[in-house]
């Protein structure tokens, strides 16, 4: 009772102070309060109501401009209210969305998309081929400086994209053309086998030029300055908001399938608060931290969802002479007990990985996963303490050293801090004479140091940009900025070139086996020490179904979600 009294006193003190402080904005809110208290009650009941899905976000949206956005959260929200030419189905395959028909030329260099007639923007204007031309030209425009412009150049291989990015050609020369209002023609430099699967990537989403120009500089900063052509319409949003609300789009061409009435996002950066909010019913789905898994693992709503990221350690083979020794590298990779890292430390369902391309995101021509067989490189990558010690002694002998000290840099985030500590302990106990020093830093700084070669060992991760092994294997070609180890192998470079722009590119089966060969080179040379493929431990309320999770591009799709 006393506590209750205290709380009343505190609450009234607070109200007083709010009125007392006299700041116009705040007192405005408290005046409003009388009128909104009913609404608040209404929204409380609305919250738990059928068809209102409440979702937790870890980070705020960085940008809702499809050509400027680069992070998963922004992509997810953009995709809620915008469709691309293609969208992802439940299995992550590209299926027709705004395009109802696609023609591919024999040589694989020309794609013709036919846009469906009932696709409209939320201001009533039809979605046209010109919207795509405008958006894609923006993506490569040096003035816009889109961070994902390489999706059109390096990866999409669209004619002239690279030249426009470099500033040698005008953006109007981009190899994309509106043949008529509803027909879009795209020309490529070389055949790109996964080109259709790029179309669901938000960088390729359309933007209506007239609307964009009417918003001036404020495009996509509020519900009024965004246009929807997808399943939902943006209802409440402001830059870096902690709450975002979307409501069903009644004019969506596929609106019969959309069962949710509204989608509410809440940014929560503290995992304890998130779990408590989930348990009290304020959230329908939330991410749980590794330590909380003990608490929820028996819950029927607990799920481990693949996040696609491959975590690995990259040795610097240019500057560090000890790491140039292959036996030392073998020793390190075999001394890592990946099983222990995932089951004892991370506990979120992450899977130990022994291949350079992680599991479950790239499906081959025969329908099987590229990295399903995790034992294919077991001669050079496995957990084997005795073999590790043998390689270690051999390596030390070759180097004429007794002790080695290496520094490992890693991000100052929860998971990498944990993993780095275990890695240090595992390496130091298995390999006598090795000292691993840890240095943690913000991610930006870690990336800069690795790209500049100012490190010895680096714990890093890579998320797939498109559903093809090339998103990983492309990294280790000579002089790639993300080839942190500065590894160079002409045979490898040749295979990769052949698979992207050469003769193998159009023969899926031959390409697939060539990619295997390339991966084997990386593993045989121990260019990287793969650790695990990241999973996110999530709680999804049992009355919610149909949320589609993907490791690539769009992490969560709510179009077919349902809440009873």
């Amino acid at each position: 009772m006393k506590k209750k009294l205290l709380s009343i006193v505190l609450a009234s003190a607070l109200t007083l102070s709010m009125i007392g402080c006299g700041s116009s904005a705040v007192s405005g809110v408290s005046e409003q309060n009388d009128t909104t208290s009913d609404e608040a009650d209404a929204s409380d009941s609305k919250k738990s109501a059928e068809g209102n899905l409440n979702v937790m976000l870890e980070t705020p949206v960085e940008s809702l401009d499809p050509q400027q956005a680069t992070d998963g959260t922004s992509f997810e929200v953009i995709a809620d209210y915008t469709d691309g030419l293609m969208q992802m189905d439940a299995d992550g395959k590209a299926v027709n969305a705004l395009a109802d028909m696609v023609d591919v030329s024999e040589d694989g260099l020309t794609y013709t998309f036919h846009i469906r007639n009932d696709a409209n923007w939320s201001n009533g204007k039809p979605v046209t081929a010109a919207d795509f031309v405008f958006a894609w030209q923006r993506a490569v425009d040096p003035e816009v400086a889109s961070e994902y412009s390489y999706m059109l150049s390096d990866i999409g291989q669209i004619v002239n994209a690279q030249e426009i990015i470099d500033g040698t050609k005008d953006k109007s020369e981009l190899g994309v053309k509106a043949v008529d209002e509803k027909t879009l023609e795209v020309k490529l430099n070389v055949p790109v086998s996964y080109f259709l699967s790029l179309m669901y990537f938000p960088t390729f989403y359309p933007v209506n030029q007239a609307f964009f120009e009417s918003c001036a500089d404020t495009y996509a900063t509020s519900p009024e300055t965004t246009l929807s052509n997808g399943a939902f319409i943006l209802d409440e949003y402001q830059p870096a908001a902690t709450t975002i609300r979307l409501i069903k789009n009644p004019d969506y061409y596929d609106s019969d399938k959309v069962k949710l009435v509204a989608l509410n996002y809440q940014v929560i950066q503290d995992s304890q608060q998130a779990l408590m909010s989930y348990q009290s019913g304020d959230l329908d789905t939330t991410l749980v931290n590794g330590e909380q898994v003990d608490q929820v693992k028996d819950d029927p709503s607990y799920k481990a969802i693949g996040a696609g990221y491959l975590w690995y350690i990259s040795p610097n083979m240019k500057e560090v002479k000890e790491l140039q020794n292959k036996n030392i590298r073998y020793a390190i990779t075999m001394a890592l007990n990946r099983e222990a890292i995932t089951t004892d430390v991370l506990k979120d369902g992450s899977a130990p990985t022994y291949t350079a391309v992680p599991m479950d995101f790239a499906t081959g021509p025969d329908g099987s996963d590229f990295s399903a067989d995790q034992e294919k490189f077991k001669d050079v990558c496995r957990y084997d303490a005795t073999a590790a010690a043998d390689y270690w002694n051999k390596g030390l002998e070759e180097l004429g050293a007794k002790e080695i000290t290496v520094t490992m840099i890693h991000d100052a985030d929860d998971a990498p801090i944990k993993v780095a500590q275990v890695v240090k302990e595992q390496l130091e106990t298995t390999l006598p004479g090795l000292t691993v020093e840890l240095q943690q830093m913000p991610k930006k700084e870690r990336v800069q140091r690795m790209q500049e070669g100012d490190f010895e060992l680096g714990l890093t991760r890579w998320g797939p940009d498109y559903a093809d092994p090339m998103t990983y294997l492309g990294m280790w070609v000579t002089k790639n900025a993300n080839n942190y180890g500065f590894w160079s192998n002409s045979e490898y470079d040749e295979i990769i070139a052949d698979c992207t722009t050469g003769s193998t590119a159009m023969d899926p089966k031959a390409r697939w086996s060539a990619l295997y060969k390339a991966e084997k080179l990386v593993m045989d040379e121990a260019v990287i020490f793969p650790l695990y493929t990241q999973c996110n431990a999530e709680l999804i309320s049992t009355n919610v179904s149909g949320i589609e999770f993907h490791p690539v591009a769009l992490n969560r799709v709510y179009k077919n979600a349902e809440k009873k």
Partner: protein
Amino acid sequence: MAEATFDKANSYVPVEADFRLKGKTADDFVDTNFASQNFWKEVIARFWRKKSAVIGLVFVLIISFFAFLGPVMNEYTYSGQNLENKNLAPRIPIIEYTGLFDGHENIKTTSGTKTVNYYFEKKLPDTFYWFGSDNFGRDIWTRTWSGAQVSLIIAVAAAIIDMIIGMSYGLISGYFGGKVDMVLQRILEIANGIPRLVIVTLLLLVFKPGMITIIIALMLTEWVGMSRIARAEMLKLKEQEFVLASRTLGAGNMHIIFSEVLPNIIGSIITQVMFSIPTAIFTEAFLSFVGLGIPVPRCSLGSLISEGFNSFTTHPYQIIPPIIVMALLMLSFNLVADGLREALDPKLKEM
């Protein structure tokens, strides 16, 4: 002038015997009146009279004792991991028979509360983690005390360095006054105007993270308060007779500042140091929480709390020891500082 001309030859020459005191003993040479005014003696006496301050001092000493000896009291080290034995609840020999600290824990899962004792499940009859083990199977007892050690070292070092810098700065600024004071005070205003968090974070990003960097960062933000106090005291004292006297006797500026004025204000300086130690511990804890604390696997009280934060509802025993030690440490330093301040402040004396 007549008085001046007296007869030298006939005048009386005093002999030593004239001045011999009666009943000469050692005690007689002590001026009791002066002794009763011995400042420090009285301060100490007043300090001892204040019970809360004494309790604070005792706790500071106990925690310091454990901070340096606690980590070597069992076989574990602060960084030694044993993933087999992770997340074990506290278990202490002998006391375990009372049912407390016997290694059981109640885990509140979403499907109800369950009581488990992993020591039995994992068949570890002879394993004891007095405060439990963390998610890497490290001993929390060892980590708590070695964390307390790190926190204490950081805080005391930062407080002492900032005392030296802040004190000199304030004294010089106050003593010289005029232009010197104006320039020094403007610099101080600028240093004080930049949000602390920004300075500290930038420093920690620019330099290699580690204990020394944290000490420097804390020092850079805390010296301002110290210099204010030193300056104010100097302004009060510099017009007093003893300063004038020593200047007349030809003392140099530095001599006056550090040998004449400083001893007179050392009391308030020490009080301020005692207050700035808990502030430093706290700031370090805050830095740990935003990921800029002491690098792993070393730990401080702050980083232990941040580590335990995520298992707050799952394994609460992991966060409780560092919180209690930290709270006690903060409380004790504050009580000691309060006691010192009262003992030193003559205005409060009469009450």
